[in-house]
Every structure is written in C-alpha cells, then in structure tokens.
C-alpha cells in the first residue's frame, strides 16, 4: 500500500465515518432519553435515501403509505388508551398530534410534488416525510413497555427492525437506488483528490452535531431532554414528561439519520435492507462512547469508517466480518472501563 492509496482510503473512511457518526449520535440520543437501543435507526436512514430517490424520479414515495398506516395505528392506540383512562378531553389533541400532523406532512409532499421542486426542496421533503416514522413507532411499539428492562426493549427493537425491513420491501420494492450527486465539485488537498461530496458529508456532520450541541446547551427543551436522560423519575417530578421527551428525541434522531441517508445515497447504492449494516456500524461507534457520550460516539463512528475503508482494501468480502469482530474487544474494554451496577433480570 502506497502513501497515496492510504490517503485516499483514509479520506474515504472519514467520509463514511461521518455518515456513521450522525447515526451514532442519534442512537445515543435515543438511548439516553428512552433507554431503547434503537436498532431500526439504520433503516430510517435507508428509507430516507429511498424516499429521495422516489421524489427524484417524480414518483410518490412509499414512505407516504408507511406514514399513513403508522399514523392511523398510533392514533387509534392513543385514542383507545385515553378512552380507557376516561380522559376524553385529551382525545382531540392526541388525534392532532398522531394523525393530523403526519397527514399534513404527507399532504405537503403530495402537493409540492406537482410543481417539480428543485433538489434542496426535495431533500427537505424527504426529511419531513421520514421524521414522523420513529415517533409513531415509539408510540406503537415502545410506549406500552416504557418501563421494561433494557434487555427486553432491545429484543423488541431487533424484532421491529425485521418488521421494518419487510415493510421496506413492501413499500419501496426490491430495486436499489443511487441518487444524483449533491455536488460535482472536487478539490485537491496536498495532492489528493477529494470529492465535493466528501466535503459536504463532513460539513453536514459537523453542522448537525454542532446544532445538537447548541440545542442541548441553550434551549429549555434540550435541557429537559438531558434531565430525562440523567434521571427519568427526577425529570418527571420537575414536570417533564418522559413520553414527550422521548418523542422529541426520536424526532431529532430521525433528522440525524435522515441526513445521513441523504448524504450516503449518492455514494452507495441503497436497498430497502441496507439500513441494518449502516445502523449496526454506527452502533459499534456508539458503543465506543459507552452509549452515553456524543463525542465518544462520533469518534468511534469515524474509527469504524476508517477501519472499514482499510479492511475493504485488504479483503472486500470480509470487511463486515472484520468490523463486527472488532465490536467484541471494544465491548470488553467498555465493560472493564465502566463499573455499572447490575440490572436485575425481571422474573
């Protein structure tokens, strides 16, 4: 391997790592606020890419159907549980949040599509369309068992991933997509060719993690989220509703995953099931940060990207084996580094 190749591989790895970093940060966000290890996060990223591709091709994206189905289920569940509790006055608000709002988003997409919107608008539409999915899934799947053990939530989360893969095939079909490049620019840094796409990926990763940082430090909602992450009961006593904090975490996380999906779509061909590997690799990064630290997660994700890049140069078929095998020493190191109190398994 020459220095040139190493440089190219490193840049490639950093770009991939930046995409993983966005997803990893979202994963940590959701885990700390809700204790759910949200495996389907990669699927959200893949679905965003597929949505954007459909919009590019002037087709109604499958996401529309998915959002409508999920919104109906979530609002039905919410209304039933409210009715059981006798809180009929809260019903209109619930219907507004779980049914009307997602449907408005769908409506906006449907209307705007007729005017052949330019690329930036299509990206915004794709992100808008993807953002309701995780909060709706949260309502349907995780809210009824919000107080269960992390282990049970993880099991449910893995099952949910497989359900989403099936739904993905149903709504998006088996074809892979690759969207138009966001930019055709290219620059040279110290004699190494760096594509504009790479620069864009890095910039987006920096901007969005920076925004998240600002959100957490300078807004009340951000502080409420951090409070929930630290101590759910304590936050509840302070008037913060963990369920609402969860919804916000899912919305923000989806935005991060969505952005990463849009960034990766012009570089890699994305299929309905591409999300699993994307999500899991981001996850390896998140675990480096102990599922708690955002900079740690980002750093870990960059590490995964770079290792994957070099591994695929050595043996393209075994790169995934290498990446996942690496998780084991990382986990070991984490478990030695952190003295966590043991959580008793429920009976």
């Amino acid at each position, binding site marked *: 391997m020459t220095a040139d190749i190493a440089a190219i591989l490193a840049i490639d790895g950093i770009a991939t790592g930046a995409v993983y970093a966005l997803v990893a940060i979202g994963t940590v966000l959701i885990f700390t606020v809700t204790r759910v*290890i949200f495996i389907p996060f990669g699927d959200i990223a893949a679905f965003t890419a597929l949505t954007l591709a459909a919009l590019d091709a002037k087709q109604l994206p499958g996401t529309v159907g998915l959002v409508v189905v999920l919104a109906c289920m979530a609002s039905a569940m919410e209304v039933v549980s409210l009715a059981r509790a006798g809180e009929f006055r809260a019903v209109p608000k619930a219907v507004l949040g779980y049914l009307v709002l997602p449907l408005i988003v769908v409506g906006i997409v449907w209307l705007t599509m007729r005017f052949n919107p330019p690329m930036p608008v299509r990206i915004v539409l794709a992100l808008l369309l993807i953002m309701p999915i995780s909060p709706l899934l949260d309502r349907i*799947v995780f809210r*009824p*068992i919000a107080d269960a*053990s*992390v*282990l*049970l939530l*993880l*099991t*449910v989360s*893995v*099952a*949910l991933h*497989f*359900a989403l*893969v*099936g*739904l993905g*095939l*149903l709504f998006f079909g088996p074809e892979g997509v690759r969207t138009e490049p966001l930019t055709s620019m290219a620059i040279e840094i110290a004699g190494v060719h760096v594509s504009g796409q790479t620069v864009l990926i890095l910039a987006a990763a920096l901007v969005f993690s920076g925004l998240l940082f600002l959100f957490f430090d300078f807004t009340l909602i951000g502080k409420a989220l951090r409070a929930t992450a630290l101590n759910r009961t304590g936050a509840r006593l302070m008037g913060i509703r963990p369920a609402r904090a969860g919804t916000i975490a899912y919305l923000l996380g989806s935005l991060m995953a969505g952005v990463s999906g849009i960034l990766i779509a012009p570089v890699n061909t994305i299929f309905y099931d591409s999300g*699993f590997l994307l999500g*899991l690799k981001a*996850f*390896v990064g998140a*675990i480096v940060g102990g599922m708690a630290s955002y900079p740690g997660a980002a750093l870990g994700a960059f590490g995964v990207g770079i290792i994957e890049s070099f591994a695929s140069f050595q043996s393209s*078929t*075994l790169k*995934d*084996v290498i990446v*996942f*095998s690496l*998780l*084991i020493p990382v*986990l*070991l190191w*984490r*478990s030695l580094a952190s003295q*966590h109190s*043991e*959580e*008793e*398994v429920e*009976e």
Partner: protein
Amino acid sequence: MTLQQIRLIIAAAIACLVAAPFVLNPFSITLLNYIGIYALAAIGLALLTGVGGIVSFGQAAFVGVAAYSTAWVTAVNGYSPWLGLVLAVVLTCSIAAILGFVTLRLGGHFLSLSTVAWGLAIAFLFGNIDGLGQHNGISGIPPISIGPLALVESRQIYFLIWAIVVAVLFVCYNLLDSRIGRAMRALRGGNTLVESLGISAFQIKLATFVIAAFLGSLSGWLYAHLGRFVSPGPFEAAMGIEYLMMAMVGGAGSILGGVVGAAIVTLLKNSVQDYLPLIAKGASGQLEIVAFSALFILFLQRARQGIVPFLAGFLPDLKQSRPQAATALPRREQPPPGTLLLKVSDAQRRFGGLVAVNNVSFDVKSGEILGLIGPNGAGKTTMFNLLTGALRANSGEIAFAGRSITRDQQFHIARAGISRTFQHVKLRPRMTLLDNVLLGTYSRTKTGLLAGALRLNQAEEASARYEALQQLERVGLGDKPFELAGNLPLGNQRVLEIARALAADPTLLVLDEPAAGLRRQEKLKLAELLRSLRADHLTILLVEHDMEFVMSLVDRIVVLDFGSKLCEGEPAAIRSDARVQEAYLGGVA
C-alpha cells in the same frame, strides 16, 4: 398431581411420537422433522435466555457452524456423517467457549449486543469462504446411516430426530434439578446473589452458554443431513431472532417451552405462507416477516410469560414427598469459641473523593454476635461489601481465619466460610423454599455437570436435600418445603435467607440489616432465632439500624460514623457513650 401421573403422561406422549409417522402424511412428517430440529436449538436458548437470563441473538450462527462443519466433512471431503457430528460438536462448542470466555463478563444488554455482532460476523463468513461454496452453499450432503440403513426418507430420519429431542429433554430436566442446574436457575437473581453462595457466576454462565451451543450444534448437524444442502440464508440474523421467538413464546425458562415454541412458530409460519397470498397477492414473502415480527412484539408487550408456564398454571400442583433422612453432608470444623476469626485492619475504601470507609479496624471472635451500627451514611454497607468481596478495599487488610481475603473474589470468600444475607432480600421467588435452601449447599457438594444431567448423583443429592430440610426446620419453616419462596411474607423471606446461609455450613454469618421492614413480632422471633444460633457456637456479624434489636441481642458493638470507627464496646457502654449519642441524636440529650 403425582409423579405416577406425570410418568403416564410422558409415556403417552412418547407413544404418540412413535405412532405419528405411521398415521401422518409425508408432508406432516417433514414438518415434524423441522419442528424437532428447531426445537433442539430453541431448547438451548430456553436454557440460556429463559433460565440463565442471557438474551442471545446468535444461536442461528452456532446452528450454522455445525451444519457447515458436517457439510464440509461429508460433502466436500467424503467422510461419514458421524465424523461430521464430531467436528460439528467440537467446533461449535470450542467457538462458543472462546466467545463466551471473552464476552460473558459483559453486563446485561452489552452482552446481548455482542451476540448480535458475532452472530453477524459468523453468518457473513459462511457466504464468503471459498471452500464453503460462498453464497451458493454446499449441496450433495449424504444422509446419515446407522449401520447399513441410510436415513434417506423423512419417515426414517424422523425417529433419529425425535429420539434426540426426547433424550435432550430428559437430560435437561435432570440437569436443572441438579446442583449445577440450580446454580443456573439462580443466575437471574444477579451476580451478587450467585457469588454469595460460593458459585462462580462466570463459570456457570460459560457452562450454560456452551450447552446452548451444543444443542444448537445437534440441530445444525441434523438440519444439514435432513435437507442435504446448506446455504448461508438459514443461519443469518433473522433466524437468530426466530429462535429467540420460539424460546420465548414457548415460555423461556421452561425446557418443554422450546419444543412447544418451535412447533407453534413452524406451524404458524407454514399457515401464514398458505394464507398471506390470499390477502395480498405477490407480497407474501415480505408480509410474512412483518406479520411475524409484529406478533413477536405483541407477545413481548402482552404475554412475556409464554405458553407452557401459562398452561402449567392450570395443572394441579405436583405432590412431592419430603426428603428422607440421609447421610449428613460433611461439616466444616468450627474454631473453638473465643479465637480470633475475622480481623479488619485499617480498611479504606474511596469512591472518587468520598472516603466511605476510612481506616476502620475491628475484630470478630468466634462464638460472639458483633453488631456494626452507625447513622445513615456511616459506611456500614460499604464495610459489609468489603467483607463479602462485593467491593475491594483501596488499602488495608481483611483476614478471615488467619488468611487474607482482601483481594479474594466473592465466591472464594463465600467458600472460605462467610455466608451472608441481603438487606433487600435476594431469593429466587419462582423456586421452592427447599430449592432456595439447596442453593446454599452448593459449596459443600461436588456433583458435576454430566453427573447431574445423567442422575448419577442421587446419594449426594439426597444428603443435600435432607440438609436443606433440616435447615428449614431449624429456622422454623419446615412445614411447607415445596411452597414458592415468592409467596412468603417479608419476615419469613429474611428467615429463609438465613436458612440458605446456614445450609452452606458457615463459620461466620454476616447479616445485612435483617430487621429492616419487619414488624415487632417478627423482630422478636428473629432475635430468638439468632440467639439459638449463637447457642450452637455460630459467629454472627450484624449490620443493623434498629437500636433496640441490636442492644438486646449482641455481645459487642462497633459504631461507625462518617466512615470512621467511633468506638467499640459492650451494649451498655455504647448506650451511655456521649460520642454515640451525639452521632445519633446530634448532641448530648
């Protein structure tokens, strides 16, 4: 229900299994074959996940390692399937042992995440190794032959599959009813509980993990020779969660649940394949996995208990006979009264900047009851954890019976003769009183895994059961040994913990706030029990909050305040000590 009736039911079930291939059509027999094969892997998971509390998403990978091993031995190299079985079992168990050795120290969800990781890594390997046919898989696997008889038809291999399933069921039930099996069932109570009984939690987890992989390897071997073809597909992550679904739907924690779960999932899958195309034409494949995942999620939300435990709730209780008198288990030699038993010198423990225990020294002499008291935050619990090995001291020395235990692991300390109870009672609520106390005899008995699984241990088991019954009687709980521990009121649960500690034949009994949460009558009974134990020359160290309880009971008292020892002496002297009064009441009253 009596044992006789259960035997009858088992005999009837086996007769049905034998008769099935003569009655059913070939398709149903094939279905039964697959149920049996999946059941083996699911039983492994029921042990690992249900009994041991270790959620693994990687069982499919173990099945795959075995299937590919035997395929490689037979189809690629032309050797006998029996040699394939040897390689399958050896390779799978070795991989499991290595993976388990590396990962089983991980806590809760980190461990499960690691199973996702290696499950994927192994599944990727199958599709990418040249010698294993890559994504095309390996075909032309020969059938298993027994002597001259080749098991070609599904009717023939049926008997082999179900003979193995039935044998595995028997062995697993025996195992769970033996010394090692009880330790496995205790795993879900947490490491601290398990280690306090002198059991190495890591060893038991590793054993459970390898057994689960072994059952997976049997499943994989049969799978390869039933279908006569292997490809990476059936061993991928999706199948890993399907096995988990089988184990949990059947009722994780129940061995029979593995078979029931495998049957339900396989039959459901089969009928879903029949009916889904009627609902949505051309989309059945993807709907199948959606339907399955949705059902699994619904199950996890609503009915985590599983089918077999749910149904077993309707059956009449099993009538068990009380353990008969048997040879006594060997007893430890107790030191003569008055000798130095436990010596704590300058023990210090820091948590960051906080010094929770600051250079504390005290002695415990054999035959006495020593009370360790102090106001909230005095460092009592930390001191207790240092003694029992739950925490390590930063400096200082703790010696027990003349040997330093400062750096020992919890289960070594327990084996050395220190038995403990817990402030927040740690019992296995779904196990009987007798089984809970039997856990205490672990360090006094020797029966290994194999001997337990094959019931070669009956003499020792009878002795242990008799010992457990005697300890139950000693503490006054001897009338209902087969009651579930979870049904007892708190006072009796604490007493049951003492019986469990006594079953280990300890030299020193350490009790962590035994009177907390008890009513007055219960406290009086507890004090009476502890006095009777002292009369039997047992040494007791008591960490307690309740002054009245302590004062009336103990011989000497050590008072801690803000992590340091305030004073030490007889109850009357402590009661009149101005420093103690100040610590408790904030000034001379």
